[in-house]
């Protein structure tokens, strides 16, 4: 028995590891993107009226970082008119890959009418067909690379909207407050944002427990939002059973001190059901109203 105890202790002491990689719920087992033909679990499926013409969907890759990892990107709209169009950059959440979020991207492409705005989405490193390992810094790095590509196509900051959902609010908020980014969004939209991993730990354990006890990825949205000056729309379901509106969303919203803020607390909506709960048409109207609001 003494041997067993000693073994346990030595094993534990010699196997210190981090949980960072466990934060990411990516699926890299797919061999291709199926988009409308994707028939696995999805938050919702739009009807045919939301179909996007095939020639307005472009799938391409970019190389990121010193290791030149390939990340996959999706652009809905006409690439030849990016230099005059307004573009919504969609930072998707933590689930699987872009196929899972395709319906959401299509819905965004109907804000203000069918393809009134271009929509771009990427799979972060480790998600879908994108190579590499996921990390907090990687989310930001990948997004910046995609924004650089948009810049090269002629997009400028005054025509960029960034929309972050759940995990995607991390790069969205970080970049919105980063004046050194090649493109900084004119407006920021977040849906179901994290406050930080500190809050995740405290919610899970009830005690004031530092996030450093389990991960070095901190997702300090509640702090980074303080650097954001642009108009800010925050959307959160009141019945979010994953990232509590009270301990996560409200804290992020309260810490914003920029030009204009708008809160949409969606009664009865859960973590992944905001668009359905609002209704797709009303959801698009809400976004259009915020994007075009004179401030």
């Amino acid at each position, binding site marked *: 028995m003494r041997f067993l*105890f000693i073994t346990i202790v030595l094993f*534990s002491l010699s196997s210190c590891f981090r*949980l960072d990689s*466990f934060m990411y719920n990516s699926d890299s087992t797919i061999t291709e993107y199926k988009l409308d033909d994707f028939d696995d679990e999805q938050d919702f499926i739009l009807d045919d009226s939301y179909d996007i013409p095939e020639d307005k969907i472009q799938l391409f890759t970019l190389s990121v970082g010193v290791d030149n990892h390939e990340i996959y990107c999706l652009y809905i709209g006409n690439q030849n008119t990016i230099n005059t169009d307004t573009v919504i950059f969609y930072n998707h959440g933590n689930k699987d890959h872009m196929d899972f979020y395709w319906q959401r991207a299509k819905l965004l492409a109907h804000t203000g009418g069918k393809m009134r705005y271009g929509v771009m989405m990427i799979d972060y490193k480790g998600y879908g067909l994108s190579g590499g390992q996921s990390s907090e810094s990687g989310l930001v790095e990948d997004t910046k690379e995609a924004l650089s590509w948009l810049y090269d196509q002629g997009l400028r900051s005054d025509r960029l909207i960034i929309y972050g959902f759940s995990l995607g609010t991390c790069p969205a908020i970080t970049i919105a407050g980063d004046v050194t980014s090649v493109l900084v969004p004119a407006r920021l939209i977040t849906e179901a944002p994290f406050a930080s991993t500190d809050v995740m730990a405290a919610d*899970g354990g009830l005690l004031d427990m530092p996030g450093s006890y*389990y991960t070095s990825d901190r997702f300090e949205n509640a702090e980074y939002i303080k650097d954001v000056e642009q108009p800010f729309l925050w959307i959160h379901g009141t019945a979010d059973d994953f990232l509590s509106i009270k301990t996560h969303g409200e804290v992020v919203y309260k810490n914003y001190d920029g030009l204009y803020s708008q809160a949409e607390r969606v009664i009865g909506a859960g973590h992944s059901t905001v668009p359905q709960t609002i209704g797709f048409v009303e959801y698009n109207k809400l976004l259009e109203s915020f994007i075009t609001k004179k401030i």
Partner: protein
Amino acid sequence: MKRTLFIISCIVAISSCAPSRYVRPLEKGQKAITGNFGGPLLKFSGLTIPLPLTAIAVGYGIKDGLTIYGGMHTTALSFGVIQGELGVVKEFVKPDSLNKFKPGFSMSYTTNLLVDTWEKNFKFWPQVDANLYWNYNLNRNDYFYIGISNWFELSGFRAHDEPQLNHWIFNPQVGIVFDQPNWSYNIEAKYLATNYSNQNIVVDYAKPWGENGGLGIYLSISKKF
């Protein structure tokens, strides 16, 4: 995301990671080393399982009815979090050796100390347990106990300078100890955080009692010297 929370929960469930230590104090001069396994039940991949939290503890009976102990949480350690505990348990009432229905009563105080090896964030939480226990079979040393375990959060704030509203975590518990001369075996169930909602948090704890608290199951084995 939720599949990852099984692992994360191993750390965040710190306040519910061990059973009560030495409900009935050791005899004077007696030493014991204890290993325990278990934790809160949570849903993972369609199953409801206890978190595999592990800890070891040593106890010493400094006099009759008074035992000191210290412990180290090995699961936390494997994640780079040094979680130790130092405590003392005192027996205030001995169980009646002639009447199996008359219980003994003990209380313990534990200081739970944590520091991570990554950013050196240090925290401590005091814990006070109180237990009634019965020698239900007067021919044996086995006993059954019920009690409460209380954790206290002393910080006035939580992350991002938000006010800390959770200062007292209340965990009723019930357990049984099969006590032999050199070994003892213990199984304990706790109704964890009875006084708090289990809704809208990242960890998907099993919720056998509705919207408050969770259930923890712990097994331990002690070798006495």
